[in-house]
């Protein structure tokens, strides 16, 4: 069943938050929804949970269209919103019982206890939510998303604001849940997506820049992506030598070496580069694709989608746009 999104567009007045994205999330997998703040992650998730209707396009969740069959979708989805809104005056148990009752869950008392156990919070079942720490509240929110054993789980930045140990615990839990459920998990922390997700969908400014398994994405970028070279010797002469090589469009000095941009994505310039460096009498220390982890893949992709602009500025601009949308 899972999630199937086709050409989804969502506007808030003049602002188009999501610009016709398509992706899917399968059962038994954790799909990471990755992007900087304000990229459209929360908006997309709100469409998928039946909170806000899309302007156009289609989104099918657990076999039902979010627009046509909103209630059917909501029955089958467990949702953890970004800042985990909870009733602070209720106890964790009462809150879960309340959600369970609205959802029509049978044997609410047992079920509430079962999900509290699942998230490791049974000892604090009768504490008022306002007395719980941020991490515990996050777990109460997650428990409430699990109370009806949903087919699809949508978690909006569940690890934000947690301490490192809690983050690890939560990631393990998400991974475990992903084996039996469809999990869509948003984050702006790239290493997290790499650790937890079977599949990653990268979104920037309301558009999908790439999707696939983390390893696939890395492989794709290694082919014809930018290359980092570290070599001993006179940097100026090295730069000169490298620039002579066929298929090298540009070479620039970076803090940890030379960053080389090839002309085309097809011909790998690395063999020629190695020869040129070695024959030129330099000591070759390292040659590798720039994009080796998701952090760098992400910067690479956003750099490509933005054309000339530097990645650093790019992220800032998007973050600004996000604040404007939020306001």
């Amino acid at each position, binding site marked *: 069943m899972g999630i199937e999104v086709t050409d989804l567009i969502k506007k808030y007045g003049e602002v188009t938050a999501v610009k016709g994205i398509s992706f899917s999330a399968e059962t038994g997998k954790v799909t990471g929804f990755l992007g900087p703040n304000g990229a459209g992650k929360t908006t997309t998730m709100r469409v998928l949970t039946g909170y*806000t209707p899309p302007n156009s396009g289609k989104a099918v969740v657990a076999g039902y269209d979010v627009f046509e069959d909103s209630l059917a979708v909501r029955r089958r989805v467990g949702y953890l919103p970004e800042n985990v*809104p909870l009733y602070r005056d209720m106890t964790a148990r009462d809150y879960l019982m309340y959600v369970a009752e*609205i959802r029509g869950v049978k044997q609410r008392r047992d079920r509430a206890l079962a999900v509290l156990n699942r998230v490791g919070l049974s000892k604090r079942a009768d504490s008022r939510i306002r007395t719980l720490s941020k991490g515990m509240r996050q777990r109460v929110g997650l428990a409430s998303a699990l109370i009806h054993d949903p087919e699809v789980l949508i978690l909006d930045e569940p690890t934000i604001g947690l301490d490192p140990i809690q983050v690890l615990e939560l990631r393990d839990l998400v991974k475990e849940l992903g084996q039996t459920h469809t999990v869509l998990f948003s984050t702006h922390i790239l290493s997290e997506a790499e650790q937890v997700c079977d599949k990653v969908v990268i979104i920037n400014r309301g558009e999908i820049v790439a999707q696939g398994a983390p390893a696939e994405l890395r492989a794709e970028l290694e082919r014809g992506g930018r290359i980092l070279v570290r070599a001993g010797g006179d940097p100026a002469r090295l730069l000169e030598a490298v620039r002579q090589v066929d298929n090298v469009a540009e070479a620039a000095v970076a803090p940890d070496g030379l960053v080389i941009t090839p002309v085309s994505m097809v011909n790998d310039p690395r063999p020629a580069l190695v020869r040129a460096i070695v024959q030129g009498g330099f000591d070759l220390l390292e040659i590798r694709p720039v994009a080796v982890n998701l952090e760098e893949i992400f910067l690479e992709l956003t750099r490509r989608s933005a054309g000339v602009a530097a990645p650093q500025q790019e992220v800032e601009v998007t973050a600004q746009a996000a604040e404007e*949308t939020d306001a």
Partner: protein
Amino acid sequence: MRAIWAVYKRETGVFFRSPVAYAIAFGLLLLLGLLFNWDIASAAMQQTMGQGGVSADNVISGAVGLLTFLMFLIAPLLSMRLLAEEAREGTLEVLMTLPMGDFAFVTGKFLAAWTYYTFILALTLVYALVLVAFGSTLDAGLMLSVYAGAWLYGGAVMALSMIWSAVTEDQIVAAFLGAATVLVFYLAAILSQLLAGQPALAGLSGFVRELSLPAHYNDTLLNGIVRAHDVAYFILLMVAALFITTIIVGTRRWRAS
């Protein structure tokens, strides 16, 4: 229905645990108690001076009449929190992604507020008990009409002021706008009198009067006159207000950010 019941139970619990709700009830009952005391004192005074005095029926309808008038303040204070707080805390997003219609939780919340009002109204029965205990007789039919009317009146006014709780996340703003709205419906009776004095606008006078709250309570039910269309007026006002509230909550889905 299941969802309405769940929301109703939670919300009623919040009212009965809320110190603010009790403070409002305390202030109201204090005022009514003073009025009652004054009524009794002046009745006793008149009796010793050999005058007819105030009837027990009038003491009760006077107290309940004042209560319904004060509802322009009480209703917004009780209903301001209902949706505004959920919107501000973000819990509205959770409610709106649960499998229930928007009308369900709006109705559940309204019914809880109405229940709390019913509790306050029921407390004023103590005055009737005091009067009966000291030998007065009350007209049962009149009392039923006065109380049932006040109950409907309170529900309608509560539903009206709840609309503003859906519009704004600021409870104070919601309360002010709610009070203003209820006052408009209350003062429409006076406006209709002013209009009646203007030959050009006299036709409008009857219509404005029909919209006003006193025309359907103070002039009828409070005096024991039960007319079907007065009852219909309050029920219609409640249902219409709940629908408007539901629609406003629904627009959040479109402007959600």
